[in-house]
């Protein structure tokens, strides 16, 4: 690891001040992704601001009846939190589908959202990668691209976002609380991550010196009808080829609300609200789920090694919705 300097911030304001005062600085909390990337020279910060002492490590009730997850709560403490398990089991399942127990004990909720892609070429400093070194080209487009995007990619980058938690949060319409030099703001999780376009080096829409302080879960947790379906090459500790977070609100067999977010297919969790709306007022059934699945992958384009993911996504959506609706055939 390259040498760097270090400060330990005592509160959010000090953290924002420290990150601005040092060039090429990064926040560090769990460190499970950043230190890994620093060891192999993919990320080369010259200064780290330790934010683990900030008072952002609690889960609290919100006035609207939801939960606020402090940015520094670990993934394990979130997934196993009594209220999360009870009211947002979709989120628990999504978190526990990712990483290992050791990593989840250390990784924080905000850090999970800000982890970098696991594109093989992003990790391999001997190859071209527009995300790692803008302007060098994308090795994945014509290389081995099994875990790459089928939706929303650009000619500059076909990387996927690796987080399972983010996919669960996308289905829950979570909100991200952020503090920066200009003060606080809140953004929907759908606006946190971005598509690669011409600037794949940018994973998110956060400002340079902004820090995530919390994640808010709205009251609707879909605790009755949900599933997190993850397809991967190993039974455990592998990133998703295609994952589906599905939540349904069903009354008398009729769907009142449907949420579907896909992981492993794009640079961000993939939602299509207009396709979800197709299910409103409909009966929960395979016949009604199929057109939604078709709509979700509309415009998908695969590459040499990942075209199978288009059909996999389509079938996974139907299966996830069937599971969430508790329909057995």
């Amino acid at each position, binding site marked *: 690891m390259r*040498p760097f300097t270090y400060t330990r911030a005592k509160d959010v304001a000090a953290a924002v*001040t420290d990150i601005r*005062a040092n060039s090429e600085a990064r926040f560090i909390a769990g460190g499970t992704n950043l230190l890994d990337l620093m060891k192999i020279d993919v990320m080369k910060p010259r*200064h780290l601001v330790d934010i683990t002492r900030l008072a952002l490590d609690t889960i609290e009730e919100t006035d609207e009846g939801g939960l606020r997850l402090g940015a520094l709560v670990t993934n394990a403490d979130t997934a196993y939190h009594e209220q999360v398990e009870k009211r947002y089991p979709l989120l628990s399942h999504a978190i526990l589908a990712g990483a290992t*127990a050791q990593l989840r004990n250390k990784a924080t909720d905000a850090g999970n959202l800000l982890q970098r892609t696991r594109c093989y070429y992003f990790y391999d400093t001997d190859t071209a990668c527009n995300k790692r070194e803008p302007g060098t080209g994308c090795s994945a487009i014509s290389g081995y691209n099994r875990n790459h995007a089928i939706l929303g990619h650009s000619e500059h980058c076909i990387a996927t976002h690796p987080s399972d938690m983010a996919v669960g949060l996308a289905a829950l319409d979570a909100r991200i609380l952020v503090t920066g030099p200009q003060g606080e703001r809140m953004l929907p999780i759908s606006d946190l991550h971005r598509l690669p376009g011409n600037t794949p080096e940018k994973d998110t829409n956060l400002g340079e010196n902004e820090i995530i302080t919390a994640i808010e879960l709205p009251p609707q947790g879909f605790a009755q009808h949900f599933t997190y379906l993850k397809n991967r090459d190993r039974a455990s500790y592998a990133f998703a080829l295609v994952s589906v977070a599905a939540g349904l609100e069903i009354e008398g067999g009729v769907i009142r609300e449907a949420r579907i977010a896909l992981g492993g297919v794009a640079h961000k969790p993939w939602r299509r609200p207009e396709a979800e709306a197709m299910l409103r007022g409909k009966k929960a059934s395979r016949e009604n789920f199929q057109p939604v699945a078709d709509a979700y992958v509309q415009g998908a384009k695969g590459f040499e090694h990942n075209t199978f993911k288009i059909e996999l996504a389509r079938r996974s959506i139907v299966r996830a919705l069937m599971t969430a609706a508790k329909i057995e055939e």
Partner: protein
Amino acid sequence: MEKNTTASVSKEKISLTINGTEQQLEVEVWTTLLDLLREHLQLTGTKKGCDQGQCGACTILLDGNRINSCLSLAVMHDGSEITTIEGLAQGDELHPVQQAFIDHDAFQCGYCTPGQICSTIGLIKEGKAKTVDDIRDLMSGNICRCGAYSNIVKVVQEALERSQQA
């Protein structure tokens, strides 16, 4: 540069309680817990496998929780309690999980074993494993290249049952 920022450092004095003994240490800020244990304190029972958080050979207990020491900066854990494989036995009496690894022949080369043992202790404390499938899933952060998995699962099962009786 703005005024009133915290002074940047590349070395820092920290205090860690390692296997029950409080130690005052001065570390370069880029030193991982794993390198601190192995290179500075000669506690080489904790192993460096991949150094990327993938193999679990470096698993230790940090304030009672299993973590990958290779992906942890020592400086960030000032004030913490660390337990490594060296801290488990009481004198000549092995920790029950250590003894169970011997009884069940749950290793061959032994390189992953300290991590497997610390991970097992962490798993028991978490109390989330109910079935053999849970054990396999919750131990998936520890790789054994000799393939001693079937006996490792037996050890974890036995240790879990014993902890539930206790």
